């Protein structure tokens, strides 16, 4: 268990900047997801923490001790690669024991640790197999076992679920969370899949173009995005971002209410929306529409997506125009130029 701290961490390859001044600190024992689109620098950040790359500038600390220049094998950080990187020339048992043997751990201690991880991960029957004879899910468990067996200070996961079939992915996600709750080892979990991040993490760090946009709990990210990037990235579909006179307003799809059904709350926005088509997703409906009236620039008629949390057929139909309202409570405001979040008070004055 450990706390990872980075200070103004930068990494560039020639003129390409991968990580552009990251300041962050983990909470001891948390599972922190690093979420971002591809090319956002999240994998580079992880490789810097692991010691596989040296930072161009900035500092890295584990429990307050600087680790720049410390080779990967001395950092006591375990990493699970996307490909799992199992050693094909060794049995599963030898794979798991490799980190212990490399550290010259006594053999009875090795045996104890091996029994401990094989029991937790339920892989006792795989020990004599070769990695080439394992399924994706089994490989993942073995990779986890190999990472866990030496009780590292820090876990690094690089998209560990992305090579699994969709059917077993959500199950593997649950198992990962359960494993983390048992071990409570501080974990950095790199992913581009927000479902994974939202469902798994204690906190999420959203990255783009090498910059951290926000660190917060899944709820904070969803209800309280720090800027338009987070607002437009988190949520499926994400926030609708509409240009107002002097700010951008962000509205979650589920926060459009029919004017007729609006509760007696303060209204931030009233729009006339023509419904283009409806999409049935089982437990909910998505409503695709075009704003016909209600925004300051009349010629702009942006598309918006609304969400209706019901399985029954909605009463509104396509080609119909309805009045929708957004309450002040639900709306988020952002600066038109910088995209950063504005406090409610400021908007009210403006």
């Amino acid at each position: 268990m450990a706390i990872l701290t980075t200070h103004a961490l930068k990494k560039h390859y020639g003129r390409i900047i991968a990580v552009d001044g990251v300041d962050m600190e983990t909470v001891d024992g948390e599972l922190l997801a690093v979420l971002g689109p591809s090319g956002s620098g999240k994998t580079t950040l992880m490789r810097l923490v692991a010691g596989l790359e040296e930072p161009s500038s900035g500092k890295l600390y584990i429990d307050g001790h600087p680790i720049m220049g410390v080779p990967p094998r001395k950092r006591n950080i375990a990493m699970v690669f996307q490909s799992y990187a199992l050693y094909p020339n060794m049995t599963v048992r030898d794979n798991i024991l490799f980190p212990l043997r490399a550290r010259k751990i006594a053999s009875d201690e090795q045996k104890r640790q091996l029994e401990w991880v094989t029991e937790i991960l339920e892989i006792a029957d795989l020990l004599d197999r070769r990695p080439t004879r394992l399924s994706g899910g089994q490989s993942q468990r073995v990779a986890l076992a190999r990472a866990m067996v030496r009780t590292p200070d820090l876990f690094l996961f690089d998209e560990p679920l992305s090579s699994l079939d969709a059917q077993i992915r959500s199950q593997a996600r649950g198992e990962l969370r359960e494993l983390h709750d048992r071990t409570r080892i501080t974990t950095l979990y790199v992913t581009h899949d927000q479902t994974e991040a939202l469902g798994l993490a204690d906190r999420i760090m959203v990255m783009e173009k090498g910059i951290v946009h926000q660190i917060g709990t899944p709820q904070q990210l969803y209800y309280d995005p720090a800027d338009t990037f987070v607002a437009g990235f988190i949520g499926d579909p994400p926030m609708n971002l509409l240009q107002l006179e002097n700010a951008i307003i962000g509205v979650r799809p589920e926060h459009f209410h029919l004017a007729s059904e609006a509760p007696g709350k303060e209204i931030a926005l009233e729009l006339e929306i023509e419904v283009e088509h409806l999409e049935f997703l089982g437990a909910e409906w998505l409503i695709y529409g075009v704003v016909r009236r209600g925004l300051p620039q009349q010629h702009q008629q942006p598309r918006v997506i609304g969400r209706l949390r019901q399985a029954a057929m909605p009463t509104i139909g396509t080609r119909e125009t309805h009045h929708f309202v957004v309450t002040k409570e639900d709306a988020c405001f952002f600066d038109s130029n910088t995209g950063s979040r504005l406090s409610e008070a400021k908007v009210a004055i403006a």
Partner: protein
Amino acid sequence: MKEGTVAHDRPTGLMARMALALERPRVLGTLMLAPAVLYVVAFVAVPFFIAIALSVSDATVGNPQIDTFVGLDNFISVISQDAFGIALRNSLLITTLTVLILLVLATTAVELLAREFRGKRLVQVLFMIPWAMPVALSAITWLWLLDSQYSPIDWVLVQLGLLGPDGPFGPSRNMFYLGREWLAIGSVVFVDVWRTLPLATIIVLAGRLSIPRERIEQAQLDGAGFFRVLFRIIIPALAPVLTVAILFTALLVIGEMSTIALLTRGGPGHATQILPYWAYLKGINSGDLAQGAAIALFLFPVLLAAAIVALRFAYRAGRD
């Protein structure tokens, strides 16, 4: 009417009909394979069977008719000569030593070339030079370097005080690299290694670059140092390709006579004699085609068996 439509679909031009024929795998396959098959038959299979026929005949350069069958007489006669034992020993010794040294050097070189560093391009080019250099040029270079009187190596050793009247290597100012049995064999091994290292390195490098980088990084994170990564991760992954490299270089060196022909001509006496060069001396220089063929064929069954075993191992290891 039906016949008419079929006829209409069939191409009429010569080119069109050829193009259609070439689309059939059997035709295309036969055509593509033909040059290689012809080459192998004409320049490998035919000479090989002629050699077998020669080795059980009494043919000489003067009377090259393969008409008298003498059984294994040539083989028995060859084995009973003193030079045979020396040539067999030297062939095996030189090949074994060369391959062992090559394995160590090629693996080391590959570890170097798999990394990024300044001037890597230059090192790569320097590595390839022995392979690209014309044989005549390298022969002159090595003959001069190992010359009995004017060797620059000797000169350096003298300057260092290792050679000469007061040096530990004796009062003479020359080592006579090619004039002493073990020094001559050592020199031959050295030149063979120098010539074959580029080939071995390229074969091994291809295998090294196909090891996923993540596997090596994983081992580093798991706490493995340089030697553990090398011996537990890299070399096991290289096993199939190392087998191929051993096989290729071993066959190249054991069948190779130009190094000996250039440096020692088998001498002094038969001290550095090897089977291929002895076969050449017997069969061509002395004109005894039958005995020459017998010597040349002597190692064939052994080499064939070794090649089959090695290839099967490489195939199995590569599949796993």
